[in-house]
Each structure stands twice: as structure tokens, then as C-alpha cells.
């Protein structure tokens, strides 16, 4: 929504603030100003001058040498290139040292303006410049009287020497507001002017609408039938005959232009003016094209078509509200009129319509049809039906004032259910309690009155006029009080009352540990999108029937690349690693903590399972076992001190078949770990071995604990025994370690693989492995015999696996 300052001042004549003061105060009282554009920006030293003489330039065909009277001193000699310049004209003249906003038509405004200095043009002295409307920062569109190819010419009677910018009405600022959806009344100049009057404590003088019309009765001209009063709560119609089309007055043109609306003719300008002034769109029909002189407001039928006045054929359905005459449709209600009922230059009698349509229906219709107009954008906010009558009467009054036609008496007004003002019990104590203020009831009532909220003392209620659709309860009144008392004047306190123990949940703490460990181990945190392309499943080699493909689809995605909710964090991680690889970043380690979304059934009938995944990914530095070490360090830090197991035959399509493992803790699957399959790597364009681990938070949580109990530091010496073995290749470390821990007994404190080797010197089908075992008794020094006996058990067990001791 835009208004010029000058338009506001038409209703708040005492407003005496600068545009800057206006904008700041309006924003703080709730009408947020987005931008403020000064129309006289970069315009300086420009006066009205009279062209006394105009002679051809001696050395240039298209230039003229003019003597111009600018009201003081000797007439100036100015060289002018405009084809329309002529002696006797009153013109805008920029004096030596002045500024204009832009260049000739097409050139547009220049940042900072253009300085004009005395100089020679083709050898002839020129002391200033005669300006076109474009050079003054506007355009012919908004000054229809201006010659599109030349200088601007003022009407006779404009005083010579006067401030030309003032004469053009450009000492003004156009203000753009952000209007919130609750304040439908502020989508009008009057609504904003009311706010301005209240904000600056000035009198508000809305237009005085008088009764207009001749002794005829409009009901003899037109009848109106509304078939769907829900979608059209009110329909008013008036008729103006003997219409004389012509330009509207300058002041109206200026108002429209400041809102970016091009002046056309008096009838169109009046309806556009009313739309801005009251926020009430109007439509004007050529009365003589309305067949049967009857208006019917009804829904269209599925499959029908209608040609709007822009010549487009629109597809209709039974939710679209139409304006029809006896035989055909003449308008798409609230959105656009029809091609063959529109006003033309030959119009004799005009039928004005000011109606109220259901905002939601207009919004949905305009969306479905794909046609948004200035009118539909007003209607879709849901207008107050009580404005329609005043608006149409005001339009007729302006027609009369402008001598644009003869207004027929009366108004057809179909308004079966009159909207009543809402009432709120006035409870000043509650308002103060809510705001934390101590404002007197009298002061509150003064604020209300400024906003035309009426206090009924007898019933102790505040009555809100129907244009204030946002006032229903005490909290709404509190807002009015707060706005005009000033948010800045309300104190700043902290809530008192029972103290609460703040903090994070256990899940969050575990995640925090995961982040700490990942970062300690060189992994940086990435953020990935929750939605992705279904093509990701192909890149990850998922078979057609893979459960991962049962992803939740977004009905209205931004595009196929963002169309499904991810069921695995792999694509996000691999995409991020690929981004780094493509940008030649070396040795990259990333982690992510984020949800995947698993549908319980498709299509969704209940919320899906959102599972938090901790994902680690790396290339270029480290291998499977490095990543395994990070996982185990994390487990250790969250109190998962048992030894995790790794099941190799996991069968994940996206991992290297021989380098992947499911991570089990206490028999429960808690995640997976692997080297990414070469084919997947190719799909993502990563040229180095890449390792990924995915941990499932929900499955980890039951094992996580931050409880710690101190165990005494060993007092007695440990004894170390190393064993070096020739192990059949098929035997895993897990099998050996199982024997060690089973057979080592209580005195086996720890064991550690310190060498593994296969190749030269080792028989085919075998590998060499060496473990270091540490024995210790917590209460005494171990005797050699105890160790011998434990070692014997261990060696027997190992032999059972086909392992030979190496000497």
C-alpha cells in the first residue's frame, strides 16, 4: 500500500511533520513504513519562466535560442532542443547551478541527479535549461497533458518566477507501507490517514459524502439479484447518465500518479481514486450494454468460459462468482470486468458497482484462474460491507462535482445481512496487567476515540466500527492502548514467579558429545537439506524394491530436486563431499546431525518417524579403521564402555561389499560403517576412497550414560606377554579376541593387536598377527604360574581356530 504525504494531508490538514518524522512515528504506532521516496529528490533551482522569444540556432537545425523571463533580473538566454518550444509558453526552467533528476524520455532518472551549468551550445551562450517532465523525474504517463516529445508547458496563469516543482505538485513524498492482514482498513488512504491523525494527535477529516442524484429512481434503470449472498454479502449499484468523458482535475491526477496509477479519464480516475481512498474497488459498466437492465450475481458452471476485458478467455468453474446480465456474464466478480460491457469513448450512461465479495473465494478464484488485479488484491483481504455504500455515493458526488454526468437518484443496495459493530467489555485493569503499565482508564478511552472506537459508558463496552475487523477481545484493546501509549514507554522487567530449571534434554547432550568428538577428530559440521531428488536412490544403487525408496513425497515441491523427504543421510553427505572434491579441497572430513523421515505407511496418515542420524564422512586422509576409531571414541565418551561388535555381511548396496559393517552394541544395531562403493563414488564424482559412518541416535540412547564410578588405580605390577601367530585368513580378529577375553580370566587386564602382516614369508592363506596381553591381579603381585596357566588356556583355544604360534 502506498500513499503520498499530500494525499494524507487532504484528510489530516493540520499534519505538520517532515516525511522522515512521519515515517518514524507511523512505524512505531503500527503502520510500518517500508520506503519513503521524495518526489523532489535531486530537483533544485527550477522556476516557472515565460519564453519571450524563440529563434532558430544559427549553427544547428534542431536547436532554438530563447529569451526566457524567469521573474527576476534580465531575461535569460537559453538554448533549447525541444521541437515544441515556442514563444509565449510558460515552462520549467532550471537555473545555472541547479539540478534535474534525469535525462530526456527514455533516459530515466540518474542517481544523484544531473547538474546544470551555464555554457555554450554550438557556440551560443545558454544560461540554464528548459525541462521536460522526464527531466523532472516523472513521466508523461502521470502528466497526460505533457508533450511526450518535448518540454513541459504550464497552463496560462501560472506565475512567472514561481517554484516550478511546487506548481507540478512534486514537493511530496510517496510512502510505501507494510500492512498486516488484520488491518484491512489500512489498505485505504482514509484508513492510513486515520492512523496518522491518531499518531500525531491531529483532527481527522474524512470526506463529507452528500446525497446526490436527480429526481429519477435508479430502480427504474436497473435491478440487482444476488443468488449467493455468502459470496456477495453486499451489492450496490448507481447510474450516471449523459456522461461527458474528459480529464479529471489535476489534484486527482496527482493523487493517482503518486500511487503509481495512470490518469485516464474522469470516470476511470474516479473509480480508481475511490479504490485507493476507501480501499473499495468499483467497477463501471456501459449501462447500455447490460441486457435486460438486470444484474445477477451467481456462480459460474463448470466448463464455462468468459472473456475478460484484457481479451483473455478464462476457464470457469462452479466456485467462481460471476456478474451476469439477463443473457450473459459481464464480469468476473471482484477481479475483472468483461470485454463487451466495458466503458468506451462512446459511453452515454454508466452503471457503477461497489460490492463486497467473500475474500477467501476471491483469493482462491484469482489463484486458480491465474489473474490478480488491483481490485482482487483489495477484495481478497475481506472488505467491510459497510464501506461500499459510502464509496459509491462518494463516486457519484465526484461525478457531479466534476460535471462528468447526471447522477440518477437513489441506490440499488442488496445487503440482506447488515454487519454489526463488535463490542468488547472495557476492563482497564486487565489491560494494565497484561501490558505491565499503569495507564488511567480515561487515557485509554482517549486513545480509543482517536481510532473511532466508541466507549459506551453506560454498558462499559468499547464499540469497534465494522471496518476494524481485528477487535474482538480485551487483548485487542490492549494492543490499541499499547500502540498509542507507545511500545517504547512500556517498561522492561523480567518475569517473576516460580523459578524453573532450564537445560537441554539428554538426547541433546548426547548429540552435543557427538559434535564434540567429531570435531576433536577433525570433522567439520555440515548442514544438508531435508528434501532431495528421488534420483539420489539411483545414484546410491538402491534396488527398485529397497525400503529406502519408500520416501514421503511433497505435494507441491519447488522442483524434482527437492521433492521427497530423505530416508537416508547418505546423499546429503556424499553431495557435500563431492562439492569439496570438485573444488579441490584436500583431505575433507564432514559430519552432520540431522533427521531422516521414515513413513509408517504411505500415503501418510500419521506423522512419520523422524530419526536423528549422526553421519560422518571423509576422504583423502584416513581409512575404515580411523573412522571406526572415531565411532568408538564417541561410544566411550557417552559411557558405552563395552566392546562393540562389527557384523561384516551387512549387504548395503552403497558400500564396498568387502568393507562394510553393521555396528552392534549389546546385540543391538546402532549404526553402520563402510567404504563407499566405487560405482557410487563415480555417480557423485569423487575420485578418492571415501568412508562413511551412520549412527542412529534413537538406538544409541538406551546405552548412553554420563554416570561414572571411580575404579582404584592398580597398585600391583602388570605382566606383559606377547604372542605371535600364524592365522588362517578366514579367522577374524573378533574370533581371536573372543578367545582372549573368554579364556584370559579375570587377570587378563587388556590385549592389543600390535602387528598384522601378510605376504612375503607368510604361507598362502595365512596372515601373521601379534597381540600383546597384559595380566594383572588387583590385590597381589601375580605369580608366574598363574600367568602360565592363563596363557595355556588361551593358546589351546587359539589352536582350536587353526592358529599356529610363531616362534
Amino acid at each position, binding site marked *: 500500500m502506498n500513499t503520498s504525504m499530500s494525499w494524507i494531508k487532504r484528510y489530516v490538514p493540520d499534519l505538520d511533520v517532515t516525511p522522515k518524522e512521519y515515517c518514524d512515528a507511523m512505524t512505531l504506532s*503500527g503502520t*510500518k513504513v517500508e520506503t519513503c521516496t521524495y518526489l523532489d529528490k535531486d530537483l533544485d533551482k527550477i522556476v516557472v519562466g515565460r519564453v519571450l522569444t524563440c529563434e532558430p540556432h544559427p549553427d544547428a537545425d534542431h536547436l532554438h535560442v530563447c529569451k526566457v523571463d524567469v521573474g527576476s533580473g534580465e531575461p535569460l538566454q537559453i538554448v533549447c532542443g525541444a521541437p515544441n518550444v515556442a514563444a509565449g509558453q510558460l515552462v520549467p526552467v532550471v537555473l545555472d547551478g541547479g539540478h534535474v533528476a534525469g535525462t530526456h524520455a527514455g533516459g530515466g532518472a540518474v542517481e544523484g541527479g544531473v547538474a546544470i551549468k551555464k555554457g555554450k551550445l554550438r557556440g551560443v551562450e545558454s544560461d540554464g535549461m528548459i525541462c521536460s517532465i522526464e527531466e523532472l523525474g516523472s513521466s508523461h504517463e502521470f502528466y497526460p497533458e505533457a508533450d511526450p516529445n518535448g518540454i513541459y508547458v504550464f497552463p496560462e496563469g501560472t506565475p512567472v518566477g514561481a517554484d516550478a516543482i511546487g506548481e507540478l505538485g512534486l514537493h511530496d513524498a510517496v510512502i510505501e507501507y507494510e500492512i498486516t*492482514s488484520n488491518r484491512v482498513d489500512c489498505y485505504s488512504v482514509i484508513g492510513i490517514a486515520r492512523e496518522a491523525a491518531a499518531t500525531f494527535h491531529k483532527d481527522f477529516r474524512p470526506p463529507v459524502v452528500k446525497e446526490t442524484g436527480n429526481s429519477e429512481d435508479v430502480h427504474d434503470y436497473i435491478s440487482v439479484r444476488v443468488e449467493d449472498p455468502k459470496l456477495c454479502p453486499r451489492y450496490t449499484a448507481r447510474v450516471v447518465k449523459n456522461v461527458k468523458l474528459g480529464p479529471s482535475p489535476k489534484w486527482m491526477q496527482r493523487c493517482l500518479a503518486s500511487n503509481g496509477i495512470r490518469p485516464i479519464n474522469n470516470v476511470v480516475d474516479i473509480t480508481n481514486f475511490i479504490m485507493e481512498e476507501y480501499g473499495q474497488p468499483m467497477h463501471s459498466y456501459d449501462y447500455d450494454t447490460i441486457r435486460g437492465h438486470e444484474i445477477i450475481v451467481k456462480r459460474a458452471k463448470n466448463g464455462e468460459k468468459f472473456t475478460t476485458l484484457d481479451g483473455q478467455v478464462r476457464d470457469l468453474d462452479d466456485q467462481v462468482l460471476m456478474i451476469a446480465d439477463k443473457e450473459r456474464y459481464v464480469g468476473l466478480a471482484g477481479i475483472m470486468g468483461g470485454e463487451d460491457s466495458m466503458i468506451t469513448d462512446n459511453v452515454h450512461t454508466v452503471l457503477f458497482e461497489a460490492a463486497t465479495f467473500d*475474500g*477467501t473465494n476471491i*483469493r482462491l478464484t484469482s*489463484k486458480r484462474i491465474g489473474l490478480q488485479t488491483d481490485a482482487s488484491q483489495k477484495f481478497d483481504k475481506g472488505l467491510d460491507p459497510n464501506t461500499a455504500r459510502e464509496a459509491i455515493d462518494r463516486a457519484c458526488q465526484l461525478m457531479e462535482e466534476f460535471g462528468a454526468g447526471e447522477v440518477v437518484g437513489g441506490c440499488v443496495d442488496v445487503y440482506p445481512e447488515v454487519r454489526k459493530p463488535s463490542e468488547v467489555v472495557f476492563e482497564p485493569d486487565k489491560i494494565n496487567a*497484561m*501490558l*505491565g503499565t499503569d495507564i488511567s482508564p480515561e487515557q485509554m478511552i482517549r486513545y480509543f476515540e482517536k481510532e473511532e472506537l466508541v466507549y459506551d459508558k453506560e454498558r462499559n463496552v468499547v464499540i469497534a466500527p465494522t471496518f476494524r475487523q481485528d477487535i474482538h477481545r480485551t*487483548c485487542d484493546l490492549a*494492543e490499541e492502548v*499499547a*500502540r498509542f501509549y507507545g*511500545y517504547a514507554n*512500556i517498561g*522492561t*522487567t*523480567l*518475569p517473576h*514467579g*516460580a*523459578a*524453573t*530449571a*532450564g*537445560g*537441554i*534434554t539428554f538426547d*541433546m547432550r548426547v548429540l552435543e558429545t557427538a559434535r564434540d568428538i567429531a*570435531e*576433536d*577428530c577433525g570433522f*567439520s*559440521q*555440515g*548442514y544438508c*537439506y*531435508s*528434501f532431495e531428488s528421488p534420483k539420489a536412490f539411483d545414484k546410491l544403487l538402491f534396488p527398485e524394491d529397497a525400503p529406502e525408496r519408500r520416501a*514421503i*513425497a*511433497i*505435494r*507441491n515441491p519447488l522442483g524434482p530436486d*527437492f521433492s521427497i*523427504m530423505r530416508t537416508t543421510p547418505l546423499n546429503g553427505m556424499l553431495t*557435500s563431499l563431492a*562439492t*569439496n572434491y570438485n*573444488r579441490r*579441497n584436500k583431505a*575433507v*572430513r*564432514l559430519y552432520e546431525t540431522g533427521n531422516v523421515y521414515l513413513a509408517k505407511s504411505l*500415503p*501418510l*496418515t500419521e*506423522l512419520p518417524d*523422524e530419526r536423528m542420524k549422526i553421519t560422518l564422512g571423509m576422504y583423502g586422509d584416513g581409512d575404515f579403521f580411523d573412522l571406526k576409531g572415531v565411532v568408538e571414541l564417541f561410544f566411550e565418551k557417552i559411557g558405552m564402555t563395552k566392546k562393540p561388535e562389527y557384523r561384516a555381511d551387512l549387504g548395503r548396496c552403497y558400500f564396498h561389499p568387502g568393507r562394510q559393517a553393521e555396528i552392534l552394541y549389546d546385540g543391538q544395531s546402532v549404526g553402520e560403517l563402510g567404504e563407499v562403493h566405487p560405482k557410487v563414488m563415480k555417480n557423485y564424482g569423487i575420485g578418492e576412497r571415501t568412508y562413511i559412518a551412520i549412527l542412529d541416535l534413537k538406538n544409541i540412547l538406551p546405552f548412553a550414560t554420563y554416570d561414572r564410578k571411580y575404579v582404584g588405580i592398580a597398585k600391583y605390577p602388570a605382566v606383559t606377554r606377547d604372542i605371535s601367530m600364524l592365522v588362517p585368513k578366514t579367522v577374524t580378529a573378533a574370533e581371536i579376541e573372543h578367545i582372549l577375553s573368554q579364556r584370559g580370566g579375570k587377570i587378563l587386564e587388556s590385549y592389543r593387536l600390535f602387528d598384522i602382516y601378510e605376504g612375503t614369508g607368510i604361507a598362502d592363506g595365512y596372515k601373521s598377527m601379534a597381540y600383546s596381553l597384559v595380566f594383572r591381579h588387583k590385590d597381589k603381585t601375580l605369580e608366574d604360574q598363574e600367568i602360565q596357566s592363563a596363557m595355556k588356556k588361551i593358546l589351546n583355544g587359539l589352536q582350536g581356530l587353526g592358529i599356529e604360534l610363531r616362534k
Partner: protein
Amino acid sequence: MSEIEKKVKEIEAGAADAIRSADTVDRLNEIKVSFLGKKGLLTSVLKGMKNVPAEERPKVGKWVNDARQSIESALAERRARFEEEMLTRRLESEKIDVTLPAKKQRMGHRHPNTIALEEVERIFIGMGYEVVEGPEIEYDEYNFTKLNIPPNHPAKDEQDTFYITDDILLRTQTSPVQARIMEQGKLPIRMIAPGRVFRSDEVDATHSPSFHQIEGLVIDKGITFADLKGTLDVFAKKMFGEETKTKFRPHHFPFTEPSAEMDVSCFKCGGKGCRFCKGEGWIEILGCGMVHPHVLEMCGLDPEEYGGFAFGVGLERIALLKYEIDDMRLLYDNDIRFLEQF
């Protein structure tokens, strides 16, 4: 002076000479053995004790002991000097060029979003707030209806919602967590709910279809708009610096009334106006307001008894401002050269 005393003195003097002229630690050890060892000169004097009259023996013992102590201390002194010299030589030889490049210690880096979030969390946890979470895929009812945005409300269109079914959507705000927590009915409530939200905005320098908000909610008896202002003022000062000023402007949100937007004085220019704050001196940070009584009612609370305030902060907005990141896309690129700066 007796013969023995004289001999002891000679031995002592000889030892002193030998120690003085010793030039290595090894030589000192030899000297020690030759004078104080089992077969050493001084020891041999003691061995000759049996020839000394009984009344003389204590005297001889004392002479020998004095001499031993004197030799030992001379040895220790000499040894200490040797060690000192050796250390000095070693330290001289070990001089390094301290301007050689550092050995880089490699650690990962936390995402700027998370750093900003943790800072917000710390501030509110300090004020007794619990951090809670809610689902990212949410019922329309929680995302809209229970927040006073009934079907066909224009605010629903404004938020450009991603729908999954008619009733299930990607939450457009973290506010539904408010409704979920209020419904649990455990009072009073002081919570913040950070999380991912979604709106169908095309990706560009200032928009992302997926971003994060931090919702705040306080429900108790006697909560005022002044409490809201005070709380958020504390937050702004802790987040952006003690000298930060706040400005509250009236605004509209369907689920709060009265509602406000909070600006903070530009932390780049201190409010004078700069390129960073587009010359305004103020930067818009968050939306807030008093919880609408209808929202309380829909969540099973009695607005006559309980009230409160709520606020919502855009996490990316804070991260972008605080770290002067000029393109939102960087936050989702995961380029290590970006992440390593935090």
C-alpha cells in the same frame, strides 16, 4: 699435630687438588672412588684405627669425618658446576628458529548455525528456559489451526507451505511446538524450541526453502508485555553486546496479541547508520507478542488465569548478521573452506 691428623690433612688437600683439576664427570667419579671408596685413601686411615689408642679414636674419627665431608662437598660443588656447564652448552646447541611455521593441529569446526544456536541456548538456559523439540513434519492443525490460523486464513497463503497431504505438512515455523508444550499442561512454562522449518522459497542469497527458527514461550500467572520486552532486551544485549539497544514496533501475528517486531541497534555502526543496516541504524531481529488468549484456550489453558509471551527468531538471520556472511547458500554448501572459518 699428630701423625694421623697430618696424614688426614694431606689426604684432604690432595683430594681438593685433584677435584680442582678434574675436567670431566668421569674423573670426579674416579676421584671419589680413590679417596672415599672402600679401598680409598681416607678409608684406609680408618682401617688403621686399631693401632690408635682408645682415647685418641674419637678424635681420629672426627678428623676423618670432617675430611670426608669436605671432599664430598667439593665433589658435589664441582659436579654441579659441570652439570650447569653441560646444560648451558645443550641449551645453546638447541636454539630454534621460532619464526618457522607452526605445525597445524587439526580439529573440525562447528557450523556457524550451531554456534549461533548454542549461544542463544546458553542465554536462555541461564534464565531458566528448557530447550525442547517438536516434529519437523507436522499436522496442519498444530502448524496453523491451534495458532489461530484457521483454514483459508490469508496467513496460510503467505507462508508458502509445503504440503504432504491435506492434513500433514512441513512445518513453516517452530511455533507449533508452543501448542504441543502447552497441551502437556505442565506449568509454568519457560522454553525455547529450536528447529528446522520449511517454506517454498527458491534458493538465493537471502532465501532458502529450509531454514531454522528458535521459538520461545513463557506461560505463567501475571506475565506482562514489559516482561517480554525485558527478556528480549537481555537476550539482545547478551547476544550482540552490552551496548545494544532494542526497539519494539507493533506488528501482527495471528497467535499473539499485542504483537511486536524487535529491532536491535546496528552492532556494526552502533546505530549511526551504515551499509550493513542500510542506513537505518537498526536491524530487524525477531517477532514476538503476548500469547493470544484463543491459542491458550485451544491448548487447554484458561486465559483468565494464565498468560504469557512468545517469540520467534530466525537462526540463519542471526548467523548471517553476526558473522557477516553475505550469501545464505554458503550455509548449505558445506565447503570446508567456509566451515573452517568458524
